[in-house]
């Protein structure tokens, strides 16, 4: 009962990997256990929670619903490890998540980050309602989503500033908002 292995080539975060996998190997398991890219997390293995979201040719996809051999038919995969810029500077959505306290345990976070990074490419300036809708396919058990929605909009701001003037300019033009608290302190 030895399984047949298939040699595949996956381009992940700009690097081409050659790996031998059985046909049933999930892309999520291949990324995590064959390539050691453990930033992509698995929360349900039935495509509902979105923790395993990666960008496949720029589009958010659930890596637990895709076989590694199928993923090899695509050009390019981006995981959370590949979101940062060439100099290691964090992606606007990574900065926004930290600024807005949009994560607590951090387990679902990579799925949200890749989802939002992909979303902002097509929707650079979402309203609050659109931002909420955009993240409404991923589960988070810690945050209650409010700060994630804020982070989508903050990421859009940072990204726009970056597109106009590069990361340095972005920091100048979109200074971090004062961390806010709802209501006053008594």
């Amino acid at each position: 009962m030895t399984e047949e292995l298939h040699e595949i080539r996956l381009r992940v975060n700009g690097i081409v990997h050659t790996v031998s996998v059985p046909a049933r190997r999930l892309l999520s398991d291949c990324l995590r256990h064959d390539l050691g890219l453990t930033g992509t997390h698995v929360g349900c293995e039935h495509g509902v929670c979105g923790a395993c979201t990666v960008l496949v040719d720029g589009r958010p996809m659930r890596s637990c619903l895709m076989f590694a051999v199928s993923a090899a038919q695509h050009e390019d995969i981006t995981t959370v490890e590949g979101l940062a810029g060439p100099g290691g500077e964090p992606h606007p959505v990574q900065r926004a998540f930290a600024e807005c306290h949009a994560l607590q345990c951090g387990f679902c976070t990579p799925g949200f980050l890749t989802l939002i990074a992909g979303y902002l490419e097509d929707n650079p300036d979402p309203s609050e309602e659109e931002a909420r809708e955009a993240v409404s396919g991923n589960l988070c058990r810690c945050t209650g989503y409010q700060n994630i929605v804020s982070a989508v909009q903050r990421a859009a701001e940072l990204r726009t500033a970056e597109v106009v003037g590069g990361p340095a300019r972005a920091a100048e033009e979109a200074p971090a908002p004062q961390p806010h608290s709802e209501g006053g302190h008594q």
Partner: protein
Amino acid sequence: MSTRLLGAPVQRTEDRRLTTGGGSFLDDLGSDACAAAFVRSPHAHARIRDIDVMDALDVDGLIAVYTYDDLTGPMAEPLPLLIPHPSIIDGRTPYALAREYVHHVGEPVAMVVARDRYAAEDAVERIRVDYEILDAVVGVEKAMQADRIVHEGMADNVAAHLVQEVGDAPAAIGAAPNTLELDLEIERSASIPMEGRGVYARWDSARGGGLRLYSSTQTATGVRAAVAAKLELQLGQVEVVVPDVGGGFGLKIVHPWPEEVMVPWAARQLDREIKWTEDRREHFVASAHERGQQQRVRVGFDDGGRILGLDVQILHDNGAYLPYGVIVPIVTSTQLLGPYKPGAYRVEFHSLYTTTAIVTPYRGAGRPQGVFAMERTMDAIADHLGKDRVDVRAANVIKPDEMPYDQGMLFQDGRPLIYDSGDYPKMLRMITDLVGWDDFEEYREQARAQGRRVGIGLACYVEGTGPGPYEGGHVQVETSGKVRVATGLTSQGQGHETALAQVVADKLGVPMSDIEVTTGDTRRMGYSVGTFASRGAVTSGSAVAMATVRLRDKVLKIAADALEADPGDLEIIDGRVQVKGSPAQGMELGTVAVLSNPLRYAFDAASAAATQFSGAADYDRPPVPEDEAPGLEGTDFYSPLRCTFASGAHAVIVETDPATAEVRILRYCVVHDCGNLINPTLVEGQVHGGVAQGVAGALYERMAYDEGGQLLNASFMDFLMPYASEVPRIEIDHLETPSPLNPLGVKGAGEAGVIPASAAIAAAVEDAEGFRIDQMPISPSELFHLRRRHARGEIASVPRRPAHRSLTKEN
């Protein structure tokens, strides 16, 4: 420091790794480990006749299969009953692998170890277990009837029974001018962290053997002691390291899980690294749930709405086993009282076995049920008397000048239920102001004119937080000036690394960037209890603060010696010890660390300065003074006298769809008092997450068992965990009533958000619909059917409520 870090909305230090894929969760570790998988019972109640593993043996990659018969010594005994209590009549706990009987779907029957998880599951599905199917017992009514018995050798299904009384409640109710009776019910939900459970074990057979165990747990030291006992190891042979944990919410305080002893046991048997990562279906059926209770409330009250006597009977579903004792129903019984003084009080619970997943604390830990009982009662009293619901609460709350207030009972930590501080009248004022309680009737009329149905509700709670016995803090300054901090309890997303660093930065005078915090690692702190009951900031925060103060004294003493100054004239600013008023006279903290540890050998420029010929020596004193230890570190432990009591109130405005019966939350307001805030951003994050789970438990989530004990919705497709589209925006106002019981004046904040949500939402739906809501959660179809029953006259109407509060003195 020029600005105080305690109380500041500092960004989290955890986030750099967690936003870049740099976190290390349990399944991210052990890339070379073998995988374990479990054969689990498909039946709710059965006797195992035979286990046939033959077909599994030719699976490529199979390493071992274990059943109960392979276990010996303590491993063959039932798992421990962690928290014994005199009320427990017959405390049953599971075996690591089922011995003869299984008592819930998902109970582990056999363990497979294989090259990887794929191979392990191939083997699992080829193992055939022959079961004699026995009767399932689902729901507290069936359990109480005792026509069918869950456990062999028991005459009924009562695991525990407790009556607690303060005064003579039946007599007080009998003599009261008004009485009411309510039958209430709350269904099961569960913690459901995004990361399930997981265990990874490495056995080192050298020198008598040693175990390194990684577990996705809420207690490192608890797991260490439990596993050591089962594997007959000394504590010194076991290290438990808790990596990043993807949420816990109470579930992961249970220990040891069957898998948590089987994985290290097999790692030793095989002398191989083994890892088990729970999958989502396993999590639903084989971890733990909470909340399921039926309550009967009898209350007597005067014409002003003041409660004279309260008698509550609780049927509590504890599932198949009782590994965590009766903490949940005890918490319900005691925290039901909330911010009120009910006169005489009697509470009785029966904790019942059913053939379903075990019930152990889930965020709130019995409080949501207690608050549901009390707050539904408050609303019923108001309606009975034609009074405003806020007025009735105001008539019953404890006043600030009555603090500390002794409720006359023992709390879940076995210590007196004495509220330390709080301002409940102010809390009520704040929540009614925040939600606009007095303007609501106007809004309701406007909505009604548009054909819309809206309602408002509120609920209050008091939460005992920060129980002992203790936590420790260890703070060490390296010669580089970097500060290493350790505490024993674990983190599941609360931001302890940030909050504890704020405490150290504030007390020691060093920048946050120089501080590194470790939690949940027995190599760094061997004495600890764990993370539960909203105790992290209170216990570890206090311990770290005390250790830092101790360390600071040592810093100042050594620096004063070197600077020939008085310690009282020194201050520490940005990691530099200096003479107040003449900052040029001073030294870096790292230099103080060098001076604190006299050396024989030089390793670098810094250590050369501490060697024996490096400077003037006092030949009358040994290099390390008596009563001192080398190195710049401080350890201290905080052991609270008793819990500190946080409080809060939630108010909700809902709209119910006249056609579809969907409930939409229009506003969700929170007033929250957890004493002094270490970091308001983190506290608000905790409130947001708690409210989300509260809304989930009120409107969406339930564990749908059929009569045969099958969990029908054991997946994220079927269990309705809310997305961003279901959770409302939350408005928060903070009240800060410091605790007098700990050096930081803090109270716990972790669970608060979830506690009053079901009560507040039930009140708002009731207000919108005009008939009583006594069961939660409530789905659109249930509300639809309630409307039909109401229309047929089967459910009493709620009387039209007064448009305005009477402005009483109390309020």
